[in-house]
């Protein structure tokens, strides 16, 4: 099996056209790869570009140069240059993502928010909801909340919905953007064991964890993002 994720020589900057076209370099020469069953953690201070790297891998941020290679079907796709339709296909079948904040949709219940990635892959809605219910129960989200839209949930409750949504599929790649930031100790433990199960299942994970205990518990390797700082151009 090919390496699930190879990032090579990626660079990213922001050009602020509304601020006289100021260019803000974020990272350059970003190169790493992640093996199946490995959890790599992006390390470095705030502003080093950890989230930007995660968002580029998900196709959410544009990539200035370099390649992000993911095996898709019987070919290799470069997410840095793929068309939107391919990126959507790769997301549906290859990459799960737990974002820092849940983007809620009016009137859609927590259970359906979690089940949606499975439904999108053609799995029967009842089966998807059963799996969603099991995940939410495991994350100790009170059952009375399942049928409600998560817009009014607390930060920790929304985050658990988000985690369940990201973990429900068996995508070979899972991106984790501070999944434990607003969880209590008990639920952090749950997430740690969920990550361990994913490793055993051979999932390649790339994450950001500010919580040191969680990072210690799950990281096989730290990727130091400060090594990708743009030389000679102070931000």
């Amino acid at each position: 099996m090919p390496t699930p994720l190879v990032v090579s020589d990626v660079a990213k900057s922001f050009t602020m056209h509304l601020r006289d076209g100021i260019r803000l370099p974020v990272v350059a020469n970003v190169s790493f790869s992640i093996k199946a069953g490995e959890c790599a953690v992006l390390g470095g201070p705030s502003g080093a570009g950890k989230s930007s790297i995660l968002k580029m891998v998900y196709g959410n941020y544009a990539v200035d140069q370099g390649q992000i290679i993911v095996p898709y079907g019987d070919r290799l796709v470069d997410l840095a240059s793929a068309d939107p339709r391919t990126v959507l296909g790769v997301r549906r079948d290859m990459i799960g993502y737990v974002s820092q904040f849940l983007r809620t949709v009016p009137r859609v219940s927590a259970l359906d928010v979690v089940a949606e990635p499975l439904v999108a892959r053609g799995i029967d809605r009842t089966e998807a909801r059963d799996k969603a219910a099991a995940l939410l129960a495991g994350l100790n989200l009170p059952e009375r909340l399942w049928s409600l839209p998560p817009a009014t949930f607390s930060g920790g409750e929304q985050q658990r919905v988000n985690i369940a949504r990201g973990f429900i599929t068996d995508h070979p790649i899972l991106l984790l953007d501070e999944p434990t930031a607003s969880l209590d100790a008990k639920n952090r433990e749950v997430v740690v064991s969920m990550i361990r199960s994913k490793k055993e299942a051979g999932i390649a994970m790339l994450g950001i964890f500010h919580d040191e205990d969680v990072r210690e518990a799950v990281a096989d390797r730290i990727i130091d993002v400060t090594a990708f700082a743009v030389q000679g151009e102070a931000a």
Partner: protein
Amino acid sequence: MNMSDTPLLKVKDLSKFYGSRIGCQNVSFELWPGEVLAIVGESGSGKTTLLNCLATRLAPSAGSVEYRMRDGQFRDLYRLNEAERRFLMRTDWGFVHQNPADGLRMTVSAGANVGERLMAIGDRHYGNIRATATDWLGRVEIASDRIDDQPRAFSGGMRQRLQIARNLVTNPRLVFMDEPTGGLDVSVQARLLDLLRGLVSDLGLAAIVVTHDLAVARLLSHRMMVMKDGHIVETGLTDRVLDDPQAPYTQLLVSSILQV
């Protein structure tokens, strides 16, 4: 999302001029089955002109629009005969207008508004037509006891939902929408958006949605085209365009959204 490997619509170098003024210029893109494309931009950017050129409501000045008919053959929309064009408009396509009064017959009943499209494709059995109409009113959350009322007696949100039912009853493959939530209260908008989102994904519809509202685009579309002065200034995956806009004009649009 159920996308096959062949596009449904192929647009090449489409332009529309009003005298020397540009409506839209050199627009090219492809749309696949099940894909929702949002065309965004401010008033006067040419997005409605483009939509009308695609839907054969307005003759373009140059360029081509090819549509994959149900037999799998691509046909240039501007070379269809009148019967073929009417088949598309009545059956295979839907067009949801911003103002429901433009897409509905205001003085016939809600049931007849939905049933009319079925009759246009040859359905003649009154009982079937009424049953299908009732089913569709239910799907757009209009109570079945309103089936004999005229849309004149409906609220704006209900009229818009009725217009959607009228368009979707024939199982179209492609739906054009021009500011479908424009002019509605925010709470009514949310309900309509959720309904549209569900219908589009359940039915695997392809849709082209013109909107000036980036939140609507984010919620409904997979892909976005940003228009300014008749030109496409940026195109890409919806969340990429909104979260990391590249073109100066897109950055301006995104930064102009009011936070609540």
